[in-house]
Structures are given as C-alpha cells and as structure tokens.
C-alpha cells in the first residue's frame, strides 16, 4: 500500500471514530450505520465491476440472502446472530459460486442480463416462499448482536461495530488491489486474452472475486437485519441492485475509495431531500445517467479533474501573458 493510501485510510478512520461524537443525533447515527452496511456491498462491487470489469445487476440478491439467512436462523431456530452471520456469509458465497461459475463465462450484456435474471428469481423466491420468508410482508422480531453480556442494541455501539468491520474489509481490499491477485484482477479488465496469455487463470479469478463480493453482500445483509430487526422482500428488489451500482458509479468505479464516497453521497443526501422519498427512482435514474455521460470517472475524481484542468489552463494563460510582456 502506498503512503497516500495509508494517510487517507488513517484520515478516514479518524473521521469515522469522531463522527458520532460530533453528530450525536440518533437519527443520523442510524443513517451512518446504513452507510457502513451498504459500503460493504459497494466495496465488493467496486472490486468486481471497477477493477475486474465484470458487471452484476443482481447483487441485492446476496444482500437479501444474507438478511434472510441470518434473520430466519436467529428467530425461527433461536440461534445466535453470530451463527446467523457466518451462515449468511457462507450461503451468499455458495450461491455466488453456483451462479457465478456459469454466468461469468458470459460477457458484457449477457452477463448483465444473467445477473439481472438471477436477482429477479431470488426476489420472487423471497416473495413466494411464504412458509420460510413470511412472503411479501416479511417478518420481524429479529434480535440484535451481543458480545458476551454486552448487547450491541444501541446505535452508538452498533455504529462502531459495523464500521470496525467495514474498515477492516476496506483495508483488506486495498491490500488486495495492490498485490499479485489485485494485478491479476485488473489485468482481466484491461484485456482478458492478454491476461490469460500471461498465465492468469481469468475464469478462476473472476469467480473468486464474484464469490468474495457475494460473501460481502451476505455479511452486509446479516448486519442489516440485526439492526432493523425486521425483514421484507421490498428491500432486495432489482431496483436496489441498481441503486448499489449507482453508488459505485457516483463514487467512481475505477477507485475503491469511490465505493465509500459514493455510498455516503447516496445514503446521506437523500435524507436531506424530502423529494427523494417519493421520486427516488427518477432521481437515481437521472444521477446515474448524468454521471455516466458527463463524469464517467465518478463525482469526486470527475470534479477534481475538471478543476485541475481549469487550474492548468489558467496557469498556461498566465504563462502566455508573461511571455508576451517579457517580449
């Protein structure tokens, strides 16, 4: 990991630690928790889409599988949420393996459609397998995590718990990107044929990163369900897969930091825009379209680049002026 990343990570950690101390409002604390939970999924998506170049329009399904697994095990079977969490991760990963193995042989539009269809199928199952999932209205009464006798029920403690996990996953992902495996993943994005000819087992790596991102989705689902204590299928529709994609795109797909920033923007901002509540789809559509057309590097990098270009242009102009005067 480069020095830049190390400082940035330290700054992020500091920010995360201080945030709830500055903004104590429990309502915002809840939003920051969602920010953390969604970030887990978007980090995985960033690795999959931005770095490896493989699209998924069905990641809400892994989130949902995690939520239902953890929720069902801890209510219906009375198991500890921790067991639920582990089961959530493994089930989501297993499902990612089963669907990813054939799907990742496809490219581009076909992969997009296959993952979209997969997401829809899982969504239908959530709605229709009523005996297990409670159908469209879902079920509640899901317990919170606890460590020994200490319950993580309070938002304050849960915030640190979630963000502890997020920062760990984030650090792990940054390490991964700047490593032998990370280079292999990026090479697949660059040119799959060339990657293969350099000895990179591209289908193996694609599957591994798909499973990894699926597992992160499952983990996020478990963290989600023990926080809101209630689960229903609406949360895991294909629309949410697209919202996740929008988060990654807004932050900038080609940089893992984009996952966290994009998620922050699209989790926190809507809370300030009342209009968002009713017309969220319209706004997400407009934002996604606008970003893809005008700022394909994402909001942060895109704006930064535009500013830099402006500054450089101004400097060039000044140089020219100086040259003229000196003549």
């Amino acid at each position, binding site marked *: 990991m480069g020095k830049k990343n190390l400082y940035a990570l330290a700054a992020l950690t500091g920010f995360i630690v201080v945030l709830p101390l500055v903004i104590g409002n429990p309502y915002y604390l809840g939003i920051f928790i969602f920010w953390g939970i969604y970030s887990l999924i978007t980090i995985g998506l960033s690795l999959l889409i931005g770095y490896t170049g493989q699209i998924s329009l069905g990641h809400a399904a892994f989130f949902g599988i995690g939520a239902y697994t953890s929720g069902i095990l801890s209510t219906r079977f009375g198991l500890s949420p921790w067991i639920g969490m582990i089961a959530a991760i493994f089930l989501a990963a297993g499902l990612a393996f089963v669907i990813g193995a054939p799907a990742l042989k496809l490219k581009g539009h076909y992969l997009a459609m296959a993952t979209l269809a997969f997401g829809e199928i899982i969504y239908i199952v959530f709605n229709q397998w009523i005996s297990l999932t409670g159908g469209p209205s879902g079920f509640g009464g899901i317990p919170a995590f606890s460590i020994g006798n200490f319950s993580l029920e309070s938002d304050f403690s849960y915030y640190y718990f979630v963000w502890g996990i997020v920062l760990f996953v984030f650090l*792990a*992902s940054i*390490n*991964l990107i700047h*490593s*032998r*495996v*990370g*280079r*292999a993943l*990026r*090479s697949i*994005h*660059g*040119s799959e*044929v*060339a*990657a*293969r*000819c*350099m*000895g*990179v*087992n*591209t289908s193996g790596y694609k599957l*591994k990163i798909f499973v*990894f991102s699926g597992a992160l989705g499952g983990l996020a689902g478990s963290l989600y369900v023990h926080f809101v204590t209630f689960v229903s299928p609406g949360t895991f529709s294909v629309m949410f897969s697209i919202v996740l994609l929008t988060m990654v795109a807004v932050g900038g797909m*080609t940089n893992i930091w984009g996952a966290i920033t994009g998620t922050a923007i699209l989790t926190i901002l809507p809370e300030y825009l009342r209009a968002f509540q009713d017309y969220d789809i319209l706004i997400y559509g407009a934002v996604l379209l606008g970003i893809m057309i005008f700022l394909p590097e994402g909001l942060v990098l895109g704006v930064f680049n535009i500013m830099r270009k402006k500054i450089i242009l101004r400097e060039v102009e000044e140089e020219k002026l100086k040259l003229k005067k000196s003549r």
Partner: protein
Amino acid sequence: MNPLLRIEDLRKEFGGIVALEGVSFTVIPNIIKAIIGPNGAGKTTIFNIISGIYSPSKGKIWFKEERIDKLSSHLIAMRGISRTFQNVQIFNNMTVLENVMIGCHPWTRSGFFSCVFKTKGNYKEEKKIYSRAMELLEFVGLADKRSLFPSSLTFQQQRLIEIARALATNPELILLDEPAAGLNARETIKIAELIYRIKEEGISILLVEHDMDLVMDISQEIIVLNSGRVIAEGNPREVQNNEKVIATYLGEKEFVKDKKP
C-alpha cells in the same frame, strides 16, 4: 536435438473458412524462427492456437514432449510459452511497471489470503516481482517510464512493454507477432537488436513479421505460409530462392528489399 515445440498436421476452420491446413513444423531450443506469408495467410491464427486462445480443428501440438493443444491459455503460459500481440493488448488500466509485473504471474504463488493479509511470504515475493519487472524494463529501455500509464506512451514503447511483459513470465519460447509493424527504420534496427538479445538469454523466438530485411537478417529458419498452408521451409537463403515463394510474393512490395521510410 529434441524440439522445443512440435506442431503436427494443424487445421483450423472458422465457420467453413479454412484458415490453416496441414501445418506441421518444429522449433528447436534457442533459435529465431520466422513465419512469413501474405496478409490473411494464417500466421496470427497459428499463434492463437499455440497459445490456447483458439482450439485447433485438427492436429497436435507438443511443447517439451507434452501435449498442449487441449490446455487453456494460462496453463500454456505456465508451461513456458509467452507472446505479444499484433494489435497491442496492453493493460491500459495499469502502470507500465504493473503491466510487466503481471508477467511474473506464472512463477509466483501468493493467493487471496496472503495478499489480503500481506504475509511475510507475500512481501518477499512482491519484492522479487518488483526487481524482476524493473530489470526487464531496463532491458527494453523503459525503466524511466515505469509509473506512467501506457496510453501516454508511443506505439513502439507499448510494443516494448508487451515484450517485457512476455519475458517476465520466464518463457522458453516467445511468440512475437509483427514486433516491427509501423516502426521506422531506426526503431526496427533497435527491435532487431532486442530480439537478438532475447535469444542470447537462451530463449527461442517464433517471429511473425512482414519486414523482410528484418526477417532475413535475424532468423535462422523461416516458414512460408500461404492461404493456410506451408509452402516452403528452410534457412533464409533457401527460402529466398524458392520458386513457390517468389511466385507467392511476386508483385508484393514486402519481399522486395527496400525500406519503408
């Protein structure tokens, strides 16, 4: 001497179009062997089959006495065959250095776990990869460009990155697909030197090239391909005097010994 690579009766069809038919040849260790032939003769297709991108419709390929025609590309690369591409296939989303570091993939081991947790073994391996990649960048003369992205380099420099990347796999055989295409005379001479230096390292080179000066100067053996069939094989002098070859190239400016500006 045992051949390094042996190809027997290779045939490739693309939906009815026969691109290769009955192609057989061998490559011995530490040699520069060229495949020449007019456009569409099937030269790149041979490379694509050797490197496992296409599977042959018929025929067998051995590398060091092992059948490789059923292996997938990455396994072939691991066996010791590396290549460059006619239409440069560089990784534009990575720095020059990282492009070459990818080449070190076949002889390194770090998996997900050791990469995520930066284990000691991973740290050591990363150091090895770094120094090998730097060594190769120096070998092709691009060490000072290491932290740039390939898109900001010239076409020739991108070609050199591809060669360095291919060498990083520690190959015993390297397939170069038109390394001098689009280069001027001075750049071509440099490439020729480079190819010679690669051979000095004990690596065999299979070269596809349209620049006849270059081919005749540096290769010890030449295969001439026309419409997917081998029409002549031998050393440069034999090939140049072969009537079939002359007939094939009649009117083609490439065979006339003059240099593009």
